């Protein structure tokens, strides 16, 4: 489990559980217990249209995999496997205006952030879990990355249109290119974590951290729309900010995860993460019809 060493007692470590629960609300706690009991209790909830999205996403995934892909897999074991990787997405969307504003400030100007970078955790039901983004500025969320990604795609299409190269297929190309960039960022973070620790960090956390890059990118593209030379100033600056943000966040994550703390390897890897932002941003910021450029 994703332990947090922010509490200063050195060896406070809870027994890691087989499944991961990073949400602080009781709904998913109770829900998770229900899922283990079987899908029957969820049958009518899954089919109801309004609660389709709120019921646990991993239950739905397991249901469909069992039914359509391989009927011999046991639902409960499959659920455990899926839940290890895909934690409850509802946790990442519990945001409000105040959180979004402050988080944007933290992502774009991380050197101005005065507070600490650790996530606040609270004991819920005997297990230590993190508070939702509404209450904790350092918690990752999925709303900002998704909106930033959408903003990036739309601004890039606008930029193309201003140069006279707009067509609807260009939007598809930019979308796929952006998804590829996101995937590359996720794999970069995941691989670096994997090489140092057991890699128990939930996937959606990594996806969220990777997606914050798109806020800086959208800002750079917006600057490029208004005055093309501003891009050459905004781009390195947002690159650096994203690098600093990722370094500080990953440092906490690694610190929490790793058993033996090997200082030099950690530092080199963090430096590598920060430097790898540059080619990624250059590639994504170069808005054109061409696929690879």
């Amino acid at each position, binding site marked *: 489990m994703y332990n947090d060493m922010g509490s200063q007692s050195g060896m406070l470590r809870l027994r890691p559980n087989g499944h991961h629960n990073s949400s602080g609300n009781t709904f998913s706690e109770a829900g998770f217990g229900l899922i283990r009991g079987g899908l029957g209790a969820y049958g009518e909830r899954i089919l109801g*249209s309004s609660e389709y999205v*709120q019921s646990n996403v991993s239950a739905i995934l397991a249901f469909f995999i069992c039914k359509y892909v391989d009927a011999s897999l046991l639902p409960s074991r499959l659920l455990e496997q899926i839940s290890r990787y895909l934690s409850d997405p509802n946790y990442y*969307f519990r*945001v409000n*205006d105040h959180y979004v504003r402050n988080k944007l400030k933290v992502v774009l100007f991380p050197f101005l952030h005065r507070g600490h970078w650790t996530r606040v955790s609270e004991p819920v039901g005997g297990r230590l879990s993190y508070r939702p983004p509404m209450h904790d500025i350092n918690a990752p969320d*999925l709303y900002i990355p998704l909106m930033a990604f*959408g903003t990036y795609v739309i601004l890039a299409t606008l930029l193309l249109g201003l140069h006279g190269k707009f067509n*609807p297929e260009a939007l598809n190309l930019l979308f796929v290119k952006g998804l590829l960039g996101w995937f590359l960022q996720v794999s970069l973070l995941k691989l670096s974590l994997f090489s140092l620790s057991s890699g128990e960090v939930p996937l959606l956390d990594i996806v969220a951290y990777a997606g914050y890059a798109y806020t800086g990118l959208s800002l750079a593209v917006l600057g490029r729309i208004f005055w093309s030379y501003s891009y050459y100033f905004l781009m390195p600056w947002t690159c650096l900010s994203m690098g600093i943000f990722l370094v500080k966040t990953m440092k906490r994550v690694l610190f929490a995860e790793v058993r033996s703390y090997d200082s030099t390897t950690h530092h080199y890897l963090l430096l590598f993460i920060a430097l790898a932002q540059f080619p990624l941003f250059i590639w994504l910021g170069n808005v054109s019809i061409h696929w690879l450029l």
Partner: protein
Amino acid sequence: MPKEFTIPPVTFPTSNTPNPTTTTTTTNTPQAPHLHQRQPPTAPFQPPRPSASSLPFMSFDIASTSTSTTSSPFFPPPSSTSSASALFAGEEPSLLEELEINPSLIWRKTLSLIHPFRLNTSLHSDPDLSGPFLYYFAFSLFQLLAGKVQFGVILGWLAISSIFLYSILNFLAGKNGNLDLYRSFSVVGYCLLPIVIYSAASLFLPPTPTTAAFLIAAVFVIWATRVSSRLLAVDDLGASDHRALIAYPCFLIYSLFSMLVMF
């Protein structure tokens, strides 16, 4: 020797000169130069009405059908949408009602959307896909007038953006979210109205790279965003917390559609 049948003479009650013809068939055509007033045509052959017969069969009488249906086919009274029981027994409901296209409701919803500051959200509480379909067609046709064939593109973008809005808003609302996909599509489609007006107007307005064109586009996009976020915030119980969070995806969607118009 052939038997002779007496054929009754054909007389028209208001014509001046009745033409008794024994050889022409009994047609219904009025003698045009001789008739001075029109009469509703009556069926020449009236089947015997079964007063108390064992076989009730439907006698198709033109006079009776025209009075039983509503006065004009395009404005059915609201009560008739409930069921066919309000209609003549044995009659089928009109095609528009069967398809659940309610033009008066579409018109009222359109009127409520035109005023950008006051919005009657109760009208939009029951979702409706026929209005969005009309707007989609109007939008595509205006784009066609501008020389861009984008029917499939617009429909695809409408579908994807309504799915996107559905998932984002349900996640944001947490446990209380009750936006279903049908309603999401309906809201996105209805709030396309400002963009339709923009595409109609852009046929006459200055071309894009000028600042004025961007300002005009911004006005329409902000109008559409305002309307759609008002409509969507009705569902969401915790909406006071995150009005801007609901409005931002709508802003993205409508700026995407306005880019189709601009470029």
